[in-house]
């Protein structure tokens, strides 16, 4: 499943190209909204970074089931043999790869344009980004399947997703902030635990309820 989606994405590059351009545009918007004041920019940088990750994630995840719907393959998804949770994991894996690519590039853009010194923070930051991304994608995949068959889905998807993601956003932003100030990973242990707890809850609910959503 993941393989199929990734192959389609690699051939068409439809979503990826759009998302990369979107990240660049976001960077400009952030810059213009905040002005050139370096002090202020540095203090809100973790929030901006995660706002960028979440917004691009919402756009990417919202398209997770578009291929099936537009090409009338929804019924085939339902008829697919085996456990429906495998479809969930496949879609999730595909979205994770896509988000990871976009996030890596966005992080690179931030480093270059906002002159951040990642230095020793990078391994810890990678861990925080991985935990946060799994959380976003786990709920996002579930909700994307839910809203794929609903009218006003482009509107409903972020409306459902964003309030649920508040704990993930708070945890990742606070952890990123501490890490960028060169604090050790142990200083943000409670946030990492919260992110792990969120990931476990979201993944468990996703795995257990995905077949309910695919029923029809």
């Amino acid at each position: 499943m993941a393989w199929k989606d990734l192959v389609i994405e690699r051939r068409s590059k439809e979503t990826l190209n759009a998302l990369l351009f979107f990240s660049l545009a976001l960077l400009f918007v952030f810059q213009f909204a905040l002005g050139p004041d370096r002090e202020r920019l540095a203090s809100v940088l973790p929030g901006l970074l995660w706002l960028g990750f979440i917004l691009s994630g919402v756009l990417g995840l919202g398209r997770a089931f578009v291929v099936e719907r537009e090409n009338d393959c929804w019924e085939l998804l339902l008829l697919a043999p085996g456990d429906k949770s495998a479809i969930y994991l496949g879609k999730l894996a595909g979205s994770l790869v896509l988000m990871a690519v976009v996030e890596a590039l966005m992080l690179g853009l931030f480093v270059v344009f906002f002159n951040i010194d990642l230095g020793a923070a990078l391994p810890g930051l990678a861990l925080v980004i991985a935990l946060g991304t799994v959380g976003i994608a786990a709920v996002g995949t579930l909700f994307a399947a839910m809203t794929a068959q609903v009218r006003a889905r482009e509107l409903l998807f972020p409306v459902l997703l964003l309030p649920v993601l508040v704990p993930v956003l708070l945890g990742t932003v606070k952890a990123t902030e501490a890490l960028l100030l060169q604090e050790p990973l142990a200083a943000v242990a409670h946030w990492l635990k919260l992110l792990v707890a969120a990931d476990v809850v979201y993944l468990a609910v996703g795995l257990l309820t995905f077949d309910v959503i695919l029923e029809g």
Partner: protein
Amino acid sequence: MMAVLGWLAGVALVAGLAMGFGVAPREVTQGNVQRIMYVHVPAVWVAYLAFAVGLTASIAYLARRRPGADRLAHAACEVGTVFLGINIVTGAIWGKPTWGTWWTWDARLTSVAVVFVMFLAYLLLRAAVEDRERGARYAAVLGIVAALNIPLVHFSVYWWRTLHQPPSLLKPGASTMPPVILAALLVNFAALALLGAYFVARRTRVLAAEEEVLA
């Protein structure tokens, strides 16, 4: 049965008013404004009680697929959202004279606001899905996610605020509540809980009637 519940709620509400305005003493520093607590605090308890009922009913619906469980989940989450709204509004009215502001991004206020928005989204999803059976399934899943998310929201928001403020400001109130005030609070809690149960029962019946008409 429902009429009895309604009357009980009515009587309890009168008793709650009597306790809140008559029996409970005037608070020394805040004056009469403090009496809003007898609505403010029970409202949030009833709201979380309703969300717990909603979570249970959502799980029950996914397990057994009885339409009744779905209607109960819908009604409970709706009533819970209304009571959370009452809690937020009364909190703002209480906050203005005592703190000097309608709203502050304090940990408790923020977490309640996030939960409120989460359940507003739940009601939006309910309204957006046309097919009844599909809507019930989707709403049950979202109801479970939202309810399980409440503790995560609480912890994250609490750490988010408290790590930045001296703990002396947000230290949980160790002051012991005088028994009269506690009694008034509990009577009002019982009254609002009965009222909430009555609303849920009524709403469940209205939902059933709606389905009958639309079927």
